[in-house]
């Protein structure tokens, strides 16, 4: 299978702080891959390196078989942030159009596309509203809509539902899944929520803390991947995978604690 993103031995330092250590993995075309890890594990840093928002790293990243630097001279990876994901001075319609306007060639039926996206995201009737007039969930729908309007092959999302309540999050998780199936996008999704990662993803990359390395990769069973139903969360396969990841994360956290204690003991000695 063609890989949309190929990361090889990616390392990143902030001064003396070693954040990412030789991270390597691939994301295939049309795949949803979640980067899962505890807070402070460098998930966002990793995503920023991949999207080009942070270009000071060592290692190689190729996007669509092209070196990232060369790819980013003409292209971009659409990005959805956790907050401030829309420009508040633009209406819903204008925020979506901003994504369309940045395409190299705008296909015919420009306005039809805006209407379709607004409908698909459940924002009909709010075209002339400003982001601050929308609920948190609707604001994130709008941010996703703007990213979709850019029509990039790859979407990057940095804990986009982190600030939302449980119910809203579930609704948006379903939306992400249906978007991926309908629009055939490759999605790189950062989260610390195990359930969210399993529900959304085809594959999960678990990273550890300080410095981050890839601890394990999980493939989500095909029957779970294809389902957009919320009930999937109660399926045996889903629960089993969640327990497995929870167990691995606890073990890794325990190992991290031991390492930190050893380091502080060595420093004291």
């Amino acid at each position, binding site marked *: 299978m063609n890989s949309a993103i190929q990361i090889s031995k990616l390392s990143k330092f902030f001064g003396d702080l070693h954040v990412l250590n030789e991270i390597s993995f691939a994301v295939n075309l049309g795949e949803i891959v979640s980067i899962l890890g505890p807070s402070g594990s460098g998930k966002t840093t990793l995503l920023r390196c991949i999207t080009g928002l942070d270009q000071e790293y060592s290692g190689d990243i190729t996007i669509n078989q092209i070196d990232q630097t060369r790819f980013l001279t003409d292209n*971009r990876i659409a990005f959805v942030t956790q907050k*401030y994901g829309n420009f508040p001075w633009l209406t819903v319609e204008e925020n979506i159009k901003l994504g369309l306007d940045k395409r190299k060639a705008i296909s015919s039926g420009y306005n039809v596309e805006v209407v379709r996206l607004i409908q698909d995201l459940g924002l009909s009737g709010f075209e002339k509203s400003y982001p601050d007039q929308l609920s948190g969930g609707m604001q994130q729908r709008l941010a996703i809509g703007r990213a979709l309007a850019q029509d990039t092959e790859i979407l990057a999302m940095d804990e986009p539902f982190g600030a939302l309540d449980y119910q809203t999050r579930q609704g948006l998780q379903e939306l992400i899944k249906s978007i991926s199936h309908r629009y055939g996008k490759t999605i790189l999704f950062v989260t610390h929520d195990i359930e969210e990662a399993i529900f959304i993803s085809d594959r999960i990359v678990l990273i550890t803390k300080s410095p981050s390395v890839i601890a394990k990769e999980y493939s989500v069973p095909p029957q779970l991947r294809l389902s957009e139903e919320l009930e999937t969360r109660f399926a045996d396969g889903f629960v089993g995978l969640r327990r497995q990841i929870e167990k691995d994360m606890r073990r890794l956290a325990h190992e991290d604690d031991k390492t930190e204690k050893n380091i502080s003991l060595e420093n004291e000695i």
Partner: protein
Amino acid sequence: MLWSVMLATAILTFWYGVTKLGIVDDLFLPSPGQFWLAVKKLFLYRDFHQDILISVFRVLIAWTISFSIAIPTALVLSKSEKLYRILSPYIDFLRYLPVPVLIPLIILFMGIGESAKISLLFIGTVFQLLLLVYDDLKDIPSEYFDISYTLNFSKWEKVKMELKAIGPNLWNNCRITMGWCWTYLVIAELVASQEGIGYMVKEAQRFSNTPEIYVGIVTMGLIGLFSDLTWKGFYPVVFRYKRAKS
């Protein structure tokens, strides 16, 4: 609005009362009648409207120059931490200088013409506005820059985004700095001027013409109030999304 009208009526009644009963000598506080006579005299025989126009002109020109220099400079400084570190002590030094202390030097270099007054007002506002805009630019959420990058914005589009992001604060800072400009105007016109509201007040003081001093003060207050109300009035028109905020 009703309270404002009631307060104005109360002030006028009090003013009329204390002058009518002779509680305050008219050398210190003229009666409303004397005040009105001074207004008529100034506008009908002394071309006071010309003084008002020249004062408004000075403020608008000086403030526009300050604005035109402060915004691009703040944008440049916000992009370079190093440049800001080098220049900020100088900006702070100039910012803390009281404007009147510069008058002798400005007269020495520029004489007593319009350029001297406009320079004084310009110096009084440009550094303040520059730092206010700089601080607002540094407060723009980093996510807006991330979105701009991932939307492949050009440099000009990024600048437009920054100006739109600081727009509401910039509007308020403009309103405030224009107010400061008016306070410096009085200083400029009291010292080296042949026309303007400040000059009229100074001349009235020479002849102990208290009613005209009061007319000058009230005129300045009214112009300031009008300027402030204009800025505030247009705020919800320019920033519709702020008005719409639920």
